[in-house]
């Protein structure tokens, strides 16, 4: 198994992090190193954390409805920082209607409430496979590939 460094982040103002903590715990139990940011991080802070921690994956959790702004903003800043090889996934309350725009921004997986954590793990396995054979999957690596 490839051990990944994964940032689990709470962008914006909402204070609900049970979902983020459940995912963080599941990723830890699957053998990954999970950096949890704590609540209320700005997109700029999240990107700096991803950069400093050399995380190759970032999971964003939002339950406040601000995902439509915050997720694409994180994607944009990752690309600006030269971190286009980082894979972005999201979770929380994300209505179907909002998803195409997030995919367009580079979010590769969206996992709503009630998603079994195994689905997130299998998403990550696919990421590792794609990286190993050179298929694009990072936020800045233009591709139609997505899992959600």
């Amino acid at each position, binding site marked *: 198994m490839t051990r990944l460094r994964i940032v689990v982040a709470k962008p914006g103002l909402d204070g609900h992090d049970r979902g983020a903590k459940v995912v963080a715990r599941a990723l830890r139990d699957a053998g990954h190193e*999970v950096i949890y940011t704590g609540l209320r991080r700005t997109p700029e802070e999240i990107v700096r954390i991803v950069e400093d921690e050399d995380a190759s994956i970032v999971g964003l959790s939002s339950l406040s409805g601000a995902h439509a702004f915050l997720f694409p903003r994180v994607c944009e800043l990752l690309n600006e920082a030269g971190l286009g090889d980082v894979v972005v996934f999201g979770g929380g309350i994300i209505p179907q209607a909002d998803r195409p725009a997030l995919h367009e921004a580079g979010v590769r997986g969206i996992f709503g409430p009630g998603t079994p954590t195994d689905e997130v793990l299998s998403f990550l396995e696919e990421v590792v496979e794609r990286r190993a054979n050179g298929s694009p999957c990072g936020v800045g690596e233009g591709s139609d590939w997505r899992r959600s």
Partner: protein
Amino acid sequence: MVHHAVLERAAIGVGVDRLDSISLLNEAKNGSRRSLARLLSLIQSGDTTAIDTVQNPPASRSLGITGPPGVGKSVLTDRLASAFSDRGQRVAVLCIDPSSPVSGGSLLGDRMRMEESGADERIYVRSVATRDAVGSLPFRLSAMADALAHAGHDRILIETAGVGQTELGIVSIADHVLLVEGPERGDIVQAEKAGILEMADVVVVNKSDLPGAEQAASDLRSGLEFGRASTVPVLLVSALNHTGVVDLVETIENLIPSDTVSSMRWRLRLLESLQQTVLSDNRLEDLVRRLGDGEVSLQQAVQELLQPEDA
């Protein structure tokens, strides 16, 4: 740039080009956090070319921050990082958390409590899992600190995972050690026990806003007076309320590097290096199995490991 796909191959033992390591180091020296971060990953994964590139680091001052779980090490580290940064120093922080012995995974949560330094872009913060280390410190921590020094950080804070009284490893790595205690950590007998207290350069009783802090400080001072370390300052701090932090920073700035402990540092470094050598020995797994099956005694296993590997 070294892509994550390359780093993932390095993590499973496929070496990285020496030129890649050198270019990462040069980019890190020119201020690239991304390159510094990727170099640190290579070093921690044991890539020998990356480790070689960070030999002979420029001068820097490192401070180990250690103490039992729950005494407030993360918040105190956060406040110290900000304070040193405000004094114009280039600060880097390594926050250590344990890896799960079962899954190998780790939940690195120190950033939750690092509100000030997390928002200060002058400060480089890196969470480090202990991975396959037996004790509370990850392997290659010294080399990671050396990489930070190369990248221009002159103040390096290393926050350990919560430790007990006997874990001295940080003494072998950091120039100075700050021991953090909390109020009501036990009676005077606890403070008089041998161990990390004897090795600390500064002792802090954190959470000084809570009852029992004065008493704890007084117990620690008497404990130290009975020993050889009667000059070690014991300070009261409330990291949460920012009380006493300025005094603490002054005290740390005035610490003088001591030569008298250097032989003990070398002793600890040698032991750490020996442990790494054993853990990376190909015969280890087989020996563990044979021990479990009762085929060899512990003494015999040690003797076998001390023989050259190809013998």
